[in-house]
């Protein structure tokens, strides 16, 4: 039972003691728990990477539409814009968020994605991590390693807080995804385990309190754009950590703060579509257009 960490602090201890990366500890933990070989586990993670890459491409085409018709075509528009303009947020950042939105559109159109950690946040890890990795010339092996890091961070949130919008709001869902991507980017770029946890802490601190208020209760709007934001958040936080900035509040306490904020959030702001944007006159009108009269309020 050597690799079974339950907190960020324990994870850092194991990394320090054994001179291992977060990715390596997470892999050793999985081997220990599942009794599967490291190769087999990496192989399954490679399959997930490929689903992510396929989803990135699939949503960039013209004509993608969600089941409700609420979103679709945004990623295509973004790539058209980038073909004729110099994006203000910079090429790499712009591509990353375009990819994130592409994956979200695939999800909303009942296509195949990897929940990371949830489907509502499935654009962020591909958008931030995979795009950055590809841009930096990382191999599939290196990307798989980075996904291992991401899963370690997601595990800590799942274990010690929540990753469900219905329990902790959007901060829990897209926040966790950003934290995962951000820490993984840091480790992929050679940062230390402590720096990776700092990056994860930054992402959460940046969006603490973000509510979950999906229009018509569908994981589409504002979700797709929040995945774009989460992608940017992950990349910014990774840069800050790689520059040596450290989190004032330790990772585990940030996770706990997020959890407690989620607990006191009104249920109307936790995926029920009864508050926030979903409860605006236009949000209600959209819901009634999709579901029929009377279905506007939650």
């Amino acid at each position, binding site marked *: 039972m050597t690799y079974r960490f*339950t907190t960020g602090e324990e994870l850092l201890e194991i990394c320090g003691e054994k001179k291992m990366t977060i990715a390596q500890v*997470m892999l050793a933990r*999985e081997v220990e*728990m*599942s*009794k599967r070989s490291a190769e087999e*586990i990496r192989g*399954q*993670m490679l*399959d*997930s990477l490929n*689903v992510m890459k396929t989803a990135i491409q699939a949503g960039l085409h013209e004509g993608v539409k*969600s*089941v*409700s018709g609420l979103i679709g075509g945004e990623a295509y528009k973004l790539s058209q814009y980038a073909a004729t303009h110099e994006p203000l947020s910079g090429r790499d950042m712009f591509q990353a968020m375009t990819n994130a939105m592409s994956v979200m559109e695939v*999800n*909303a*159109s*009942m*296509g*195949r*994605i*990897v*929940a*990371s*950690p*949830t*489907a*509502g946040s*499935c654009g962020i*890890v591909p958008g931030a991590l995979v795009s950055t990795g590809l841009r930096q010339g990382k191999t599939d092996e290196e990307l798989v390693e980075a996904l*291992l890091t*991401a*899963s*370690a961070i*997601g*595990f800590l949130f*799942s*274990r010690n807080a*929540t*990753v*469900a919008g*219905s*329990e902790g709001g959007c901060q829990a869902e897209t926040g966790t995804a950003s934290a*995962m991507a951000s820490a993984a980017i840091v480790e992929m770029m050679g940062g230390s385990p402590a720096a990776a946890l700092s990056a994860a802490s930054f992402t959460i601190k940046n969006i603490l309190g973000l509510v979950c208020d999906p229009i*018509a*209760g*569908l*994981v*589409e709007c504002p979700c797709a754009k929040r995945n774009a934001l989460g992608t940017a958040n992950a990349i910014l936080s990774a840069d800050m950590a790689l520059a040596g900035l450290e989190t004032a509040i330790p990772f585990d306490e940030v996770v706990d703060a997020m959890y407690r904020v989620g607990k006191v959030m009104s*249920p109307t702001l*936790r*995926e*029920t*579509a*009864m508050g926030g944007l979903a409860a605006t006159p236009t949000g209600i009108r959209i819901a009634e257009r*999709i*579901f029929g009269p009377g*279905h506007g309020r*939650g």
Partner: protein
Amino acid sequence: MVDYSMFDILGPVMIGPSSSHTAGAARIGKMAHKFAGDDIKSVDFYLHGSFAKTYRGHGTDKALLAGVLGFGESDDRLREAFEIAAQRGVAYSFQEKDLGDLMHPNSVKIVIRRTDDSEVVLIGSSIGGGNINIVHLNGIDLTISGEHPTIIVRHNTSKGIISGMTNILMACNLDVLYMSFHKKKNRDDEGVMVIEVSDVVSDEALRAIRTFPGIVDVYLI
């Protein structure tokens, strides 16, 4: 469930749009399928909390039904669940129902009638990221996460069951991770044992459990 695999976190690979409302729902349905089997006449879904409010747009209804029909969360046929149920002659209904304040917001009660008129009643919660908990089975409150291979034993006596089961598990070299006992209210003669093990369960082990005195039924999840 605290021993998440990395594939619970980065995963599942699934058909969108929602891990809790689509993939989790499919998994709860599939769990019900394990208990009910293929010979079913009808199924009624009672949707609670957020499931009740937002199920239509997430395809929660399709996912639940697809699961009950035996399909997994990454199966393309999930989209055609209504049509497939019609082809198989399985009647279905969806109703909103408050299952109580303590129930997780993404929960559903599933009532399945088999062709032999027996019933399976199950309540499941989708607890995030596609992970689920079964919290009720045929009149008994319990917890089944389905994370590890799980043996579910229904028994009609309490005498000697625990030692009997542990003996069998030991003889079959099975490592028990978690074991729990659940009884119907005010009844000693009807209970369920949930045994999570770390390894694949052999047919031999199942046979030994099934033939033990007092065992009514055994399921492997």
